[in-house]
């Protein structure tokens, strides 16, 4: 079998917003391989990523366990973090992600959250900030199997585009086969609040600092539920460092 035969393309659902040229240039092992993680029942595992290239994580969370993934995707080329999570009874999955950057790069998060047993909860918060011709994507699929009653799954995506030409895509997909289920998802794409920018300027804050304060407040949502505050802060700083070098 050649590499080409197994390479995903943008015709595949989960790769629909990916950078086609970057996919063609990648090798199949990276694009189709998985990092496997098992969270034993009742235990808690946290992972954090400064995304570069393509990584796929497959997680199984045992009964009453917790898996937390936090990530900044500010890579200088096509970059994607994919996470497939299967939750057992009473387990929790927490995801906080930020895509940020300019250029003409595509940066994305793709999650598939399988509520395989009752009483499991999941919460995903993704923020995207882009300029230039950059693209930020969040594809989040939630599957609730039959009998996975009392599932509570939340997903929230918001994007701010600092320049015309940048873009953001999101596609929540819900496949729900149980009836006693709470699934909340929200998505919004907009620009920075100009009136807030003028208010800050009227107090003497120059535009680049005003922008930084606004972006910081915006993306901080993504790491609000990350248990280790130091991790959240480090990711926040990493994300903001990209903004600092931006030519806007």
């Amino acid at each position, binding site marked *: 079998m050649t590499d080409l035969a197994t390479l995903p393309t943008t015709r595949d659902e989960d790769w629909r917003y990916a950078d086609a040229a970057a996919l063609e240039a990648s090798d199949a092992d990276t694009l189709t391989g998985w990092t496997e993680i098992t969270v034993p029942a009742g235990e808690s595992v946290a992972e954090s990523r400064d995304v570069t290239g393509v990584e796929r994580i497959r997680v199984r969370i045992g009964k009453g366990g917790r898996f937390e993934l936090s990530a900044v995707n500010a890579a200088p080329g096509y970059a994607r973090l994919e996470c497939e999570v299967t939750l057992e009874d009473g387990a929790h999955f927490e995801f906080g992600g930020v895509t940020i950057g300019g250029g003409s790069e595509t940066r994305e998060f793709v999650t598939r959250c399988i509520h395989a047993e009752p009483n499991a909860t999941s919460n995903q918060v993704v923020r995207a900030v882009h300029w230039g011709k950059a693209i930020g994507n969040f594809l989040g699929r939630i599957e609730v199997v039959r009998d996975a009653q009392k599932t509570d799954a939340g997903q929230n995506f918001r994007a701010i585009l600092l320049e015309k030409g940048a873009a953001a895509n999101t596609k929540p997909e819900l496949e729900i086969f149980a009836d006693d289920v709470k699934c909340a998802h929200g998505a919004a794409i907009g620009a920075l*609040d*100009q*009136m*807030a920018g*003028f*208010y*800050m*300027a*009227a*107090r*003497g*804050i*120059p*535009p680049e*600092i005003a922008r930084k*304060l*606004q972006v*910081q*407040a*915006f993306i*901080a*949502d993504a790491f609000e539920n990350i248990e280790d505050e130091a991790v959240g802060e480090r990711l926040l700083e990493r994300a903001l460092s990209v903004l600092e070098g931006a030519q806007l």
Partner: protein
Amino acid sequence: MLKIENLHAEVDGKKILNGLTLEVGAGEVHAIMGPNGAGKSTLAYTLGGRPGYEITEGSVTFDGEDLLDMEPHERAAAGLFLGFQYPVEIPGVSNVQFLREAANAQRKHRGEPELTGGEFLKLAKEKAALLRMDMDMLKRPVNVGFSGGEKKRNEMVQMGILDPKFAILDETDSGLDIDALRIVGDGINSIMRDAGKGVLLITHYQRLLDYVKPDKVHILAKGRIVKTGGPELALELEREGYEEVV
């Protein structure tokens, strides 16, 4: 100190200021009154440099410098303060963080040393106390969830901390309860009554002027000053209304 000459300005292609001329000297307080939609807030925004407020004619000098040539944040650093009729909410940014950034950005711009965290907090506490505002409110996000009156009081705490040379206060009295009005009036006097400072008070009511006594009162209608007088003009307006006086 602030000299506005023949100012014409438009917003979204609509002419709103039509040849407005006004001069406020150092040590003076001037009041601007006028019917709804006359262009009072537009004047404030234009002086503050709000994007989209286009000046088509006229000039404004501030302490001899061309104000219209400066960026909005440079105007603030030069000592201009704009008290907003509708203070803006900034979710996720605390008052303390916002004001410390503002105070230090202004200082940096003027080549002065920045305030340390301790120095800033001391100053903030002092000004919050002057306006009888709870320090806890300063830790909350800027204006988010503040009542109308609290927002106005917060504007004055900000003015106290930033210590401007010239303040344009757009209906700072609207929305204040009777006690708050006195506190804010006293606050304005204590922060701004100084031989080297000036104030332009935009208001609809005589009551604030009982506390902050104006040297002159102007009536703004249809985008220009149509009448100027002493403090008695505000009383006359209160008795007889714009239709009679203008």
